[in-house]
């Protein structure tokens, strides 16, 4: 690796004083590689791999998790995520439109909502939905039981972000589009629904998919609501099994299940972003 660097450096050196720009870049890159390799070796040598494998990679325990980890835990995670996403999307759309409204109080309420819910940890919102809501409205059940509660909590968490994303998307649609629609006789509402929002969604598809990934991970906070055995999702499922077996393999398996979904989704987002970038050119 260092061989070509040397020849290039010495060939140019006599002509100019010190390192050339190219020489300096090579030297810097070489140093970075060295640090990286050293760090990997240090980690590999110092960690106790035997004990780690014992704690995290016991095939017998891993095998015992199937098929429940998929047909129950992953399925529930997906269900919680999607229902939260739908609630967040609908609520976010309403808040975005309120934020863009010409009616002052609507703008104001939407702004306050966004500031509050963007500033709170998701965990607090889960606790709030699990504890405060039943206290505040005794006798009133949130529809759908745990599923309804999770959808509400995740929806409340994501609506604030989605509202800002949707608003940005709507504002990114050129002004001429609304003017063309109005000049054809569309009412403002109809123009928004048939012309502007469909274009806005094309623009914000990547950030919305990102939000889906975030929600997928945030669904792990369901365990703060207290769930039945059938309602367990990946994190709770993994943690329960880990304490049963006194081994952390279930945590690793649960983690891999998350990655099974989040990595392809992230890949999809980058593809969409690249495509959108290309369309702009």
């Amino acid at each position, binding site marked *: 690796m260092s061989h070509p660097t040397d020849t290039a450096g010495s060939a140019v050196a006599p002509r100019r004083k010190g390192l050339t720009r190219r020489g300096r870049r090579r030297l810097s890159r070489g140093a970075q590689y060295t640090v990286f390799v050293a760090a990997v070796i240090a980690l590999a040598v110092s960690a106790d791999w035997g004990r780690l494998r014992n704690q995290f990679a016991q095939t017998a325990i891993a095998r015992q998790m199937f098929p429940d980890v998929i047909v129950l835990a992953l399925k529930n995670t997906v269900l919680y995520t999607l229902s939260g996403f739908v609630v967040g999307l609908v609520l976010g759309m309403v808040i975005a439109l309120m934020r863009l409204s010409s009616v002052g109080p609507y703008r104001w309420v939407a702004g306050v909502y966004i500031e509050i819910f963007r500033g709170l940890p998701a965990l607090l919102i889960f606790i709030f939905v699990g504890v405060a809501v039943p206290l505040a409205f005794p006798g009133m059940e949130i529809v759908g039981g745990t599923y309804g509660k999770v959808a509400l909590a995740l929806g409340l968490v994501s609506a604030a972000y989605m509202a800002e994303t949707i608003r940005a998307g709507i504002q990114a649609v*050129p002004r*001429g*589009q609304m*003017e*063309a*629609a*109005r*000049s*054809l*006789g*569309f*009412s403002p509402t*109809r123009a928004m629904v*048939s*012309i502007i929002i*469909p*274009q806005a969604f*094309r623009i914000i598809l990547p950030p919305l998919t990102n939000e889906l990934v975030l929600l997928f991970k945030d669904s792990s906070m369901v365990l703060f609501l207290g769930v039945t055995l059938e309602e367990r999702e990946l994190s709770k499922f993994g943690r329960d099994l880990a304490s049963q077996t006194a081994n952390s393999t279930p945590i690793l398996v649960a983690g891999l299940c998350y990655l099974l979904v989040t990595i392809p989704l992230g890949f999809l987002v980058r593809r969409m972003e690249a495509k959108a970038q290309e369309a702009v050119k």
Partner: protein
Amino acid sequence: MSRTPEIRIRDLHKSFGDNEVLRGIDLEIGQGDVVCVIGPSGSGKSTLLRCVNLLEEPTKGQVFVGGTELTDPDVDIDAARRRIGMVFQQFNLFPHLTVTENLTLPQRRVLKRDKAQAARTAAENLRRVGLAEKADAYPSSLSGGQQQRVAIARALAMGPEVMLFDEPTSALDPELVGDVLAVMRMLAEEGMTMMVVTHEMTFAREVADRVVFMDGGVVVEDGTPGQVIGNPRHQRTRHFLSRLLDPAMAEVEEEISDRAGKSE
């Protein structure tokens, strides 16, 4: 000219904040007449056109189209706009829809036409502008000239009584201008009432019944093309036309008059 005016503008004023862009415009356009509006950049031509279909709210004054007062606060503006087609400099086609959908969606959503009728009207108007074969294309795959003709067809599909054009050829490459002007010429011959902001003097001379020269938010000159373009009475009109017809000459002229102004 003795016909009932299709468009009537009375003492129209429009300000953006402190900037008074229109300072009292009076204009009548007869049914079937073609009026070209010319004038220097910033003189308020676009603003005037946008006030005619109330895309801009006039600060003061009245606008009538086909006998309806659009400036009446109680008027159903969406209904009124259906009778006024507008064509923009930047086309403003809906990029997420195909050419046909660009024409059918407004008919279905606004005029509540059924699918078959909307499709028929769309096909008919695409044929009129010579783009029947692009029915299933997306706007982004069309040239500027083709996009503008689709935009005209989209406006026509709504069956307007009046068409407004805001510099419809200014964003086009020179070789594409002709096709768009040909479509507008056809419309004029069919008797459409048209108000056209343009810098195409040949079009104005040959097609317009009247040419209106605007400067500084007022109508400076209003008459037949022969009068306004051929034999302008006002110094401002003459100056504008000489700059438009021969930009290179005008610059020298300006420089000379500037220098003369300084030495005084």
